[in-house]
């Protein structure tokens, strides 16, 4: 159990900056997810916490103590590597036992046996104990790697895309197992993934990392409903959020938005109008999720926008209908039984209370209705770190 802090960490590899003045605080026992596209710096972040990589600037703290000078083996962290990093010449049993045989974390053989048995039973690999990694499938190797990580009682579990190479069903199963394990182990966990469903279902908090900087940190709910910018908004949700430009104009004292080649108006809720006006009346990007759009094959009158069906994809429990509205494509989530003919007319109505507004230039969030401004991005770069009391 431990609280992990990063203060103003910068890590460069030659010309490339992998982490750019990152600050972070992970609470004790928290399941913290690092989420972001490939190359964002997630693995580098984990390795910096583990001590395998040394930052050019900044401090790494475990339980309040600076550990920059502490060697990885003394930091008492346990890690699952993305490419498993299993010892090829050892059996599965010896691989998992390896951490408990080092001088530092030495345990007697009886303890080792019980620990290995416990973990392999949980991961359903107890029948593979004698095999070498080369004789296992990817999924089995991944579970051995997870097993090796779990046999110790470290300050923190660091997991780098541990479920990435498993098939969908196994991934789903393991997700639940991990969450169960983590709460029973009572250990801080930092978990890296680029699968947003994994992130949302497992995390206490999520941090979105992009190009070495945090885009947003917060709960899954905040990520989904109050994204700090378009990048974050696009990362979460399937189908991807619909974004299109809209021009504000005044009519009878009410702020309205013109969208879709100027013959449609959207009326934002009153509480956002102030924010929109503050923005200077510039064109904004409007975002709306596919599930927040009503559709009908008949024109129901005012407030309904006309478009034509471009594609219709049933994907199991729902259907995604892609609609072309004046050169923009809008993805709408429809119930399972929907059938739509290509190129037929279709009418859409947007739930204006669910609209998200972004600055067209900076791509940052202006607001949404429900009154709240989005949570401010975590303060960084000036070296101010939020401290949490355990």
């Amino acid at each position: 159990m431990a609280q992990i802090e990063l203060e103003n960490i910068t890590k460069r590899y030659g010309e490339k900056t992998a982490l750019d003045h990152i600050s972070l605080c992970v609470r004790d026992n928290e399941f913290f997810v690092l989420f972001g596209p490939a190359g964002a710096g997630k693995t580098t972040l984990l390795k910096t916490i583990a001590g395998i990589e040394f930052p050019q600037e900044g401090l790494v703290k475990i339980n309040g103590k600076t550990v920059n000078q502490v060697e990885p083996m003394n930091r008492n962290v346990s890690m699952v590597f993305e490419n498993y990093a299993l010892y090829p010449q050892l059996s599965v049993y010896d691989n998992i036992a390896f951490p408990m045989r080092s001088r530092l974390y030495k345990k007697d053989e009886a303890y080792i046996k019980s620990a290995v048995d416990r973990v392999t039973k949980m991961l359903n690999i107890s029948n593979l104990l004698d095999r070498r990694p080369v004789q296992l499938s990817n999924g089995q190797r991944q579970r051995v790697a997870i097993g090796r990580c779990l046999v110790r009682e470290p300050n923190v579990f660091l997991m780098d895309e541990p479920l990435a190479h498993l098939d969908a069903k196994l991934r789903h199963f393991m997700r639940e197992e991990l969450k169960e394990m983590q709460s029973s182990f009572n250990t801080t966990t930092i978990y890296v993934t680029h699968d947003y469903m994994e992130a949302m279902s497992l995390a206490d908090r999520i941090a979105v990392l992009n190009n070495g900087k945090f885009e947003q940190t917060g709960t899954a709910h905040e990520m989904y409903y109050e994204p700090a910018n378009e990048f974050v908004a696009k990362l979460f949700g399937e189908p991807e959020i619909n974004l299109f430009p809209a021009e504000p104009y005044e009519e009878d004292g009410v702020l309205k938005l013109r969208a879709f080649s100027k013959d449609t108006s959207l009326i934002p809720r009153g509480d956002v109008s102030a924010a929109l006006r503050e923005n200077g009346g510039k064109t904004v990007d409007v975002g709306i999720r596919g599930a927040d759009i009503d559709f009908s094959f008949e024109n129901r009158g005012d407030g309904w926008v006309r478009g034509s069906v471009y594609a219709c994809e049933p994907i199991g429990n729902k259907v995604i209908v892609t609609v072309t509205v004046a050169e923009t494509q809008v993805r709408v989530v429809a119930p399972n039984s929907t059938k739509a003919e290509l190129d037929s007319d279709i009418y859409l109505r947007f739930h204006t209370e669910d609209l998200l507004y972004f600055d067209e230039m900076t791509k940052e969030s202006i607001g949404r209705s429900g009154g709240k401004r989005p949570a401010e991005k975590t303060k960084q770069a000036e070296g101010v770190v939020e401290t949490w009391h355990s």
Partner: protein
Amino acid sequence: MNQNKRTAGSLLGALGRNVVLIVYALFALFPLIWMVLCSFKSDVQMYNTVFRFTPTLENYRNVLFGTDYFRAFFQNLLVSGVAVVITIVAGVPIAYALARYDFRKKEDVAFTILSFKFAPEILVCLPVFLIFQKIGLYDTYFGLIWVYQLVTMPLVIWVVRGYFEDISVEIEQAAELDGYRWYEIFLKTLVPLIKPGLVAAGLLAFIFAWNDFTFPLILSGFNVQTITITSMRYIASDTVHYGQVAVAATIAVLPEVIVCLFIQKHLVRGLSFGAVKG
């Protein structure tokens, strides 16, 4: 109709291929067979028989017991063996450093080490001869072993470096996190993984050292002899006992052929200094 033409063509091709291969096989292997045959021929029979003769062990007896060839054989073994052991102990860490650490001019350093292989041995030999005379290393085991490093080090370093590069660095990092010190990681994790390549490189380096001609010629005299030099004396003498020459050659070649069979799998990688991953 077409079928027949094609089969005829491919038959001809197969015939041609086999003919060429057989001719080359004769070229490559017959000298060795002849050498072994001659080693069993008495002096008299050398002149008037070709393939049909009565074998005799006389030559072997003469060479092994009548000359110091045996001694030269073991000296060769000793010098080459110790040289390779030293190369491995000192060179493997360098191979590791070249594989893992990053520093400016790394490739230049690596290429310089490789270029030792291409430098004319005599170029190094002459000054070394002078130095050795001065500091008394001429005609000593130590001197020859030191100089053999020129031949063995580049090979071992370049080949083993390749094997290190094949191991993902994360295995070392995982062992670090598991609580092992760096030398424990090296011995317990890395060495077992490079062992086959290391053995092959070591054996190949042994062969290079065993075969070397220039260094023993110039830098050793009576005290330390290698069989490459000793064998030469056989031809230079007045009455040439061809049978004994054949024995000398056979004994010289035997260890290498045996080693060759063991390292077949890594032979290409070793011979090309890691450039080709056969």
